[in-house]
């Protein structure tokens, strides 16, 4: 399941979505707003997304992960809007019978999300500048 939200990501809810007696392993990944990037200090991030395509792309990544690994449940959510230091911008939760699949699929989903899903972040640097990040 893929979702976009402007609210703080509820990690407990996300874990409940993927935990099942059919699974022996759950992996949750959180991307969080880090204070320092190559020595520059951030105070906040703003995320903008092309919502319908972002959701479609997240669903395609989920389908690819389910085709590559035998997964029980997979849930991915990305937050949009204004995020303070330490808040989670993205969460991937995945469950599987055995742990290797959950780790590999979790890493695959976040790796693919970062290169394909049309979402952009704007840095709010501590010195007052703002800057769109375009790798």
């Amino acid at each position, binding site marked *: 399941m893929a979702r976009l939200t402007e609210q703080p990501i509820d990690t407990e809810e996300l874990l409940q979505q993927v935990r099942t007696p059919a699974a022996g392993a759950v992996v949750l990944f959180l991307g969080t707003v880090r204070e320092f990037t190559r020595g520059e200090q951030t105070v906040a991030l703003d995320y903008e997304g*092309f919502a319908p395509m972002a959701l*479609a792309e997240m669903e395609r990544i989920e389908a690819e992960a389910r085709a590559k690994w035998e997964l029980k449940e997979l849930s991915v959510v990305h937050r949009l809007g204004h995020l303070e230091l330490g808040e989670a911008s993205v969460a991937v939760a995945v469950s599987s019978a055995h742990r290797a699949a959950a780790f590999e699929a979790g890493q695959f989903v976040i790796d693919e999300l*970062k290169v394909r899903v049309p979402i952009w972040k704007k840095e709010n640097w501590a010195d007052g500048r703002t800057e*769109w990040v375009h790798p």
Partner: protein
Amino acid sequence: MPAPDSIRPVPVDVQLFALAKELTGQALIQVAVTGEPVTIGSLRKSLVLQFPQLAPLEKRLLFAVGTQYATDDTVIDGRQSVACFPPVSGG
């Protein structure tokens, strides 16, 4: 005598995001695209001629038709929903 289709520009509505939106100050622009057929590649060229603020991003701009990535070879007819944006940086 009307001009042949091949040289009559096709108006294409393009949604912009992130830095592309910021540089133009617009979330939705219309670009007159010339080409036979009209492709994402010809849109890319027309776009930076008509919105020179986007020229520094030209080669890196990504395009989508509907909710799918498009390549420079993708043919468009001006009726689809087209989006244009810089490399993504979510996560």
